[in-house]
């Protein structure tokens, strides 16, 4: 790949109560890839994303987005947290949640107006959720909630997308719809980083992969490194998956 480096992580170590969750991670993610982060539970996959986004403070190391710290590059980045991290009973509608994606560009105090609402409606349309715009978010199915989150990221019109387990608890139709949108983003030259659980679908969905288990095991093109050897190193047991090449 001769593409520029979109995200660069240097010697990143993150600890909860003095126990390292991520240990000395070096990682370079080239622009324009659709990358899966895989690893067992507790491997630090979500922690890695949150540290890159400055939500968690690392005890060592640094992160840069196109060569600059995250704080200066916020408008280039969109983030989709785990669906379970928010309270879906919150009194708000689908359209309002998607509009939140525009808040970053607005900055402090300024309120969203017609322009922001129009962008949010377009994003809802893109994920097939326009008919549900006025619905209270607890009245949506799991798959629909995930689409709303995706729409909220799309409205940010970013260059880099981070998604934390977007396929968790969604039906097959939504999973296909989401992955198609992600592939479209890649086609448009965007970089997409996804915490992913289902190893079977990695070769089908992604072109880039990072194996993570507290330490970085491997990172690179799926066709080069998605093999039994790396899976065994990451998950600690003998792995035999048939990889479609």
């Amino acid at each position, binding site marked *: 790949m001769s593409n520029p480096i979109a995200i660069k992580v240097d010697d990143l170590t993150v600890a909860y*109560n003095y126990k390292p969750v991520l240990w000395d991670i070096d990682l370079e993610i080239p622009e324009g890839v659709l990358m899966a982060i895989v690893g067992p539970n507790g491997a630090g996959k979500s922690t890695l994303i*949150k540290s890159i*986004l*400055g*939500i968690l403070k690392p005890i060592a190391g640094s992160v840069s987005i196109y060569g600059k710290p995250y*704080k200066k590059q*916020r408008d280039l*980045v969109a*983030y989709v*947290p785990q669906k379970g*991290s*928010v*309270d879906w009973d*919150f*009194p*708000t*509608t689908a359209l309002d*949640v998607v509009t*939140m994606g525009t*808040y*970053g560009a*607005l*900055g*402090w*105090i*300024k*309120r*969203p107006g017609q322009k922001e609402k129009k962008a949010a409606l377009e994003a809802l349309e893109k994920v097939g959720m326009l008919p549900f715009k006025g619905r*209270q978010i*607890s009245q949506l*199915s799991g798959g629909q909630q995930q689409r709303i989150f995706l729409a*909220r990221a799309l409205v940010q019109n970013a260059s880099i997308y981070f998604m934390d387990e977007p396929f968790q608890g969604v*039906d097959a139709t939504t999973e296909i719809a989401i992955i198609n949108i992600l592939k479209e983003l890649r086609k448009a030259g965007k970089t997409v980083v996804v915490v992913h659980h289902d190893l079977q679908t990695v070769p089908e969905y992604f072109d880039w992969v990072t194996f993570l288990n507290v330490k970085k095991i491997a990172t690179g093109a799926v066709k080069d490194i998605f093999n039994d050897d790396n899976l065994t190193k990451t998950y600690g047991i003998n792995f035999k998956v048939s990889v479609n090449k």
Partner: protein
Amino acid sequence: MNNAQVEIQLIASLVAIACAIPGTFLVLRKMAMISDAISHSILPGIVIGFFITQDLNSPILILLAALTGIITVVLVEYIQKTGLVKEDTAIGLVFPILFSIGVIMIAKNANDVHLDIDAVLLGELAFTPFDRLIWFGTDVGPKSLWLIGGILVLTLVLLFAFFKELKVSTFDEGLSASLGFSPILIHYGLMSVSSVTTVGAFEAVGAILVVALMIAPAASAYLLTTNLKKMLLLAVGFGVFSAISGYWLAHTLDASIAGSITTMLGLVFLLVYLFAPSKGVIAVLYREKQQRTEVSLLTFLLHLKNHDELEERHVNHLREHINWQKVRAKSVLDLALKNNMIVINKNIVSLTEKGNTFTTKAIDYIITNKDAQIEDMKDDFFLFRG
């Protein structure tokens, strides 16, 4: 109504509005208990402030006491962060200690401090009109009115300026942080407003009622709306209603104003809890009953579709085959008839064309696991739905 009565109701209403606004966000953040902690642990701050200023309405006292509120939040979070105890335990550890320090300070200086425990717990709303603010020799109203009015204006300005930030950080902390709206900053901002409001409301309504005024209106509003702005407006409305009706209840019963306002708050919540259109107890029970009937109907239709044998479809045998009680079987049969799903010919039940289409579609959705769509389908077919 005389002047003092109007002033008391005005003060009570302003306190209610000032409490309902931060209260709404505390309820949504599941932090209702922190307001209990703040309202108690500001006591030592108030006592120390009173030693220094000798004036319960002094801004210095307000700031000192609000600072104690913030310290409470910090202490609770610090204890919680050790991972040794959970948040509710941490709250339960911190505020009684700070509150008792305040109680001891009052007791040790009972002679020269114009503060007593009753007033601390329940406030002295009835006495607030006596303490007047004199400005250039003119009486401009009770000091409490100006104090709580000032706090309310501050709260409103902050609410209008940072509504979007409060909303996003309350709903989704992770997104808020990634967008650059520091959740920690907003959290402490909200805690500061809650503390200042609590201190301002403290003299008027006491430590116990402050909690009720923050939580009860917001909790009632939460059951009635799915819109944050409406929730804020409803909470404010419930607060003001309880404040004024509570005052007149106290007037009629010749009882404590603070106690009566709290009773009204409880009553409002009870009524909403029972009768809220979609989240209320009665609505939920009704919906469950309707769902049971609908599931029965679907089971019944599936049974008919599965069995061509006349015996299985005979009116008198149906009950045994599906194993239902008589009443339920009858009501389901009636419902199916009323919706033109079935016809009964010589005591043999058959699906109509509509019934057949409905059941075929339902089976298809169940098999392909699109349960949600059955709901939409029911709306198309059933007559008894709106």
